[in-house]
């Protein structure tokens, strides 16, 4: 990569990826300790995608994510405290404990879930972009989904609709090669996801999802395209999850060798190495980052532990709005 490295920016991205990594590792530990229940889907290995893409979004843009969304939420700027408390089911959590790991929402950062029906969030992104266009706001809606979602009708209907109406939707596919335990070769007649754009007139690109610099560059091209009013863009990030699909997955569908191969391209190591090669980084820097991230994760756990349970009397709140009359 010939682009000169902005040390501060790179360190910031390294820290974000490290925060996601350590946050996820801690979450797995807390799951085993039964502090976190339900389903837990970890983002370990895929950090470069969320961190690279978020760098290209403005605060007024919107994000729609999947059930594997802690990484996106952290990279979007949500506090580790509110996410951890949500996973504990505490009312200090971002969704008051109503959503859990799969339903992280945050009005402040325009983070619209946490969508646990595969591809179910994609039409929402189309609508959010439609509302921006109709109200004359130059904003982008970034919609994360996995390779599994590409088999759903919602993906195809939404690509068509967004292209037909020239809506600023970034279709951001995190292709980690497996829909739960089904390899993409067993699910897609044409496994090149970016190729799906052609039929809908949506420009598309494939990028190395383990390389945060490459992801950011590609996302910049995509979001520039959107901001110029040219309609949607499909960005396929080839990535890999290092851990099982969820905490119940025995990983019968892939080999340890394959996982180890991908771990050699760990996005955190890749960026650290790049900084090191440029003489902009040393072991002390890394240690300082680790310390600062560890503190943030520990603080999040302490916050969640200290959190309180929503009174059971509140059970039926938020089924309907408490104030009627728009």
């Amino acid at each position, binding site marked *: 990569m010939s682009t000169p490295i902005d040390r501060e920016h790179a360190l910031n991205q390294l820290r974000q990826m490290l925060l996601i990594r350590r946050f996820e590792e801690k979450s797995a530990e807390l799951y085993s300790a039964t502090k976190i229940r339900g389903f837990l889907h970890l983002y370990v290995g895929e950090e470069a995608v969320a961190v690279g893409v978020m760098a290209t979004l403005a605060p007024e843009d*919107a994000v729609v994510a999947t059930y594997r969304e802690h990484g996106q939420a952290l990279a979007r700027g949500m506090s580790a405290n509110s996410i951890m408390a949500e996973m504990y089911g505490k009312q200090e*959590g*971002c*969704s*008051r*404990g*109503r*959503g859990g790991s799969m*339903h992280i*929402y*945050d*009005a402040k950062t325009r983070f*619209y*879930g*946490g*969508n646990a*029906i595969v591809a*179910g969030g*994609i*039409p*929402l*992104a*189309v*609508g*959010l*972009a*439609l*509302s*921006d266009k*109709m*109200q004359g706001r130059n904003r982008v*809606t970034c919609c994360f989904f996995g390779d599994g979602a590409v088999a759903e*009708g*919602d993906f195809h*209907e*939404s690509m*068509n*609709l967004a292209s*037909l109406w020239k809506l600023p939707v970034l279709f951001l596919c995190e292709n980690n090669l497996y829909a739960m335990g089904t390899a993409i070769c067993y699910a897609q007649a044409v496994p090149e996801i970016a190729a799906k754009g052609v039929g809908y007139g949506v420009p598309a690109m494939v990028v190395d999802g383990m390389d945060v610099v490459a992801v950011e560059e590609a996302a910049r091209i995509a979001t520039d395209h959107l901001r110029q009013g040219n309609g949607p863009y499909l960005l396929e990030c080839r990535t890999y999850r290092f851990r099982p699909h969820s905490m119940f997955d025995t990983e019968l569908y892939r080999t340890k060798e394959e996982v180890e191969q991908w771990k050699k391209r760990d996005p955190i190591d890749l960026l650290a190495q790049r900084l090191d090669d440029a003489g902009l980084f040393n072991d002390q820097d890394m240690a300082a980052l680790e310390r600062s991230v560890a503190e943030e994760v520990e603080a999040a756990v302490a916050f969640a532990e200290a959190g309180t349970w929503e009174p059971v009397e509140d059970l039926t*709140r*938020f*089924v*309907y*709005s*408490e*104030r*009627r*009359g*728009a």
Partner: protein
Amino acid sequence: MSEQAAMKETTYREAVKEAIREAMIKDERVFLMGEDVGHYGGCYAVSKGLLAEFGPERIRDTPLSESAFVGAGIGAALGGMRPIVEVMTINFSLLALDQIMNNAATILHMSGGQFNVPLVIRMATGAGKQLAAQHAHSLEGLYAHIPGIRVLSPATLEDARGMLWTALQDPDPVLIFENNTLYNMEGTLPENAGPVDIDSARVRRQGSDLTIISYSASLFKCLDAAEALARDGIEAEVIDLRTLRPLDDATYLASISRTHRALIVDEGWRSGSISAEISARIMEQAFYDLDLPVERICSAEVPMPYARHMEEAALPRVDTIIATAKRMVRHG
């Protein structure tokens, strides 16, 4: 309503269109989208002429992608618009059931109250036009099962004209079911007809001998039956539920406390239906007011057949309502 208000001849279809026009004029956040709402003028001609008046941005033809355009309606509502999404017919809405149930109805709750979805979805429902088993069911009761949405069933011209605006003021998703046999119904409305409440049932005919509870097109079968019954000296009170979720229990319970007999007429299937729900509520809340068990007249539990005589046999009928009411009054 002022007594001086001039009356005008209209139809159910025109009343719905006027409601949409009024909303589009009063609130620039409102837009209509769905299959064939624009250039075709609406499958049931409800939106005919609106494209010319409001343009393609606000009268938005969609591809045949129910899930995506209902989902886009949810997203647009989250983004500050006030969409009216038209689904051509109720059986097609099942293609968007995921969006309605898993997103529209849940986002407020899943987000801990952060994001509400001010969306209105309209669709045609019901049998009576020989459209067979993929176009003609009454699944309102299925939607009424879902917490987080409101389910409206306008039967009268006044409600067809007035429920939409109130629904658009609601911060949460509202589904409006328009029975396809009502679109041609003629009648009069005041020139200045406007919004009506979407929370309460109405007594459409007073009577002291039994309470007939119904909604949508079946309401008129009940009113016809009540007129025939009156000729035989039986006075039926007829309740129009209007809103199927949340149900207004008080109105029909108050009626039953006077009549002591309850008959429910529902174009939906019998098992697990809105009529079953109402029957259970009567049992729970008015058991000792009853002189005899609640009875129900529902659609036969078959996919809707095409042949006219078979379709008629599958639906609640006026003669059955009359016979059942007479039996209930004479034997209870």
